[in-house]
């Protein structure tokens, strides 16, 4: 859906149906879409988890050091290529 959405065609949905029913396909599709949309927005806001992996409340600066200052979702142009391709 994010990197090559045109490949998500009728045949791909038929493959999904081997494992998932119609309700689960809607659940997966909307969940994935939601995450594609929102993670990019959140990435532009430059905020990071409040807690470290070991459960400490940390500053945003420390959290950026712990989790990385450049989220993977912002590191490439996968969504743009998918949309413009």
């Amino acid at each position: 859906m994010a990197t090559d959405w045109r490949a998500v065609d009728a045949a791909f949905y038929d493959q999904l149906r081997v494992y998932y029913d119609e309700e689960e396909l809607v659940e997966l599709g909307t969940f994935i879409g939601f995450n594609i949309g929102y993670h990019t927005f959140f990435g532009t806001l430059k905020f990071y988890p409040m807690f470290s992996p070991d459960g400490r409340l940390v500053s945003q600066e420390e959290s950026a050091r712990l989790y990385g200052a450049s989220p993977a979702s912002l590191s490439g142009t996968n969504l743009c290529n998918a949309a413009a391709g």
Partner: protein
Amino acid sequence: MTHIAPLDAAQIKDPELLALMARAEALGVPDELFTRIVARVPAYAKVLLNALLVSHGQGSVDHRLKEIIRIQLARFAGDTYFSALRSKRALAAGLDEATIDEGCNNYEQGRRFSEAEKIALRYADMMYLDPNQVDRAFYDRLKQHYSEAQIMELGGFISFHYSMQVFMRTLGAVPQKPSP
């Protein structure tokens, strides 16, 4: 035929969902098809439809500007369904296809938009074209025209509507009837 078949309208009996569908029908976005597909998961359908309606129809940013942004994003996503729908409220307020086309294709050079409208269109454009450019400096420029609340309103609207467009574009969906 969409890749996930919609439910028959008669199968939807939840009064809360039916009320949301009536609001969507009045606005024109989304039409019944979206809801009949997501209604396969009723709890999702209510939340998703309500979020679409609230983010599009409420808040303090001009609804006509949001409608142009929504169509700009849908065209960018390659979503034949949402890009063909039109808000009846925005059309009634004077939005026309020429303005929509300029907002989607040539807002920077066009004369129809204020600087505030241009930077909102740029915000949506850059969010998925090149999110690295939506940096602190860009947010500082946005703040010259919009409050923090309005920026959250725009960001939430842009990302949520794009979210549903990237789902619908995979289904081969088109609107049930032409928009007015």
